[in-house]
């Protein structure tokens, strides 16, 4: 199928790239269908709304810079996303690239949990006070190597 995207204009996507967020993202509840696309720079992804071309998020695998990250997924969410084991889930976090410049940050307080097989997703707020909305990706990567 062809979709209009914020980053690439019109592109063809495979059905397998389409994800459904039945409850949307927090603050964006109206938008439930997205395509997961590779961004031009690894290891980032774009989460592109299939309904609104100008709505796209940048995603990153949080474990790349926080090996100690952990996401608490309750039974109800596991069932809703068709997760039987932790390996069935893809965990990605939203990235903020401030247009005015400044640190690129990832939101570890509200990760996206996606069922690899069901291709259903949800934003799952985390109660652990270690996880904030703004983790400086470069700084934490540097700290992990130090």
């Amino acid at each position: 199928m062809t979709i209009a995207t914020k980053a690439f204009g019109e592109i063809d996507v495979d059905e397998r790239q389409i994800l459904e967020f039945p409850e949307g993202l927090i603050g964006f509840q109206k938008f439930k269908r997205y395509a997961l696309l590779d961004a031009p720079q690894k290891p980032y992804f774009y989460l592109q709304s299939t309904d609104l071309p100008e709505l796209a998020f940048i995603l990153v695998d949080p474990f790349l810079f926080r090996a100690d990250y952990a996401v608490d997924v309750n039974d109800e969410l596991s069932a809703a996303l068709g997760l039987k084991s932790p390996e069935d889930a893809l965990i990605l976090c939203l990235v903020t690239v401030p247009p005015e410049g400044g640190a690129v940050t990832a939101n570890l307080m509200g990760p996206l949990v996606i069922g690899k097989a069901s291709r259903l997703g949800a934003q799952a707020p985390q109660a652990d006070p270690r996880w904030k909305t703004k983790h400086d990706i470069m700084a934490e990567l540097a700290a992990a190597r130090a």
Partner: protein
Amino acid sequence: MLILTRKLNEKVVIGDGIVISVVELRGDQVKLGIEAPRSVKVFRQEVYEAIQEENRRAAGSAMELPGLQLPS
């Protein structure tokens, strides 16, 4: 807004199946117990609002991404 006064261990029932109890009072903190059907999402307001605010900022991100050198 409906305002109710409750004592320790007293409860408030909301609709069908939501019960809020006052579990502990200590100084300026109150600990609440919330029983609700699993379909009802319960968040601390500041967590929900922080994520909503950051989602809005994320949606307004520049699409150009900085390179990231990852350990192999």
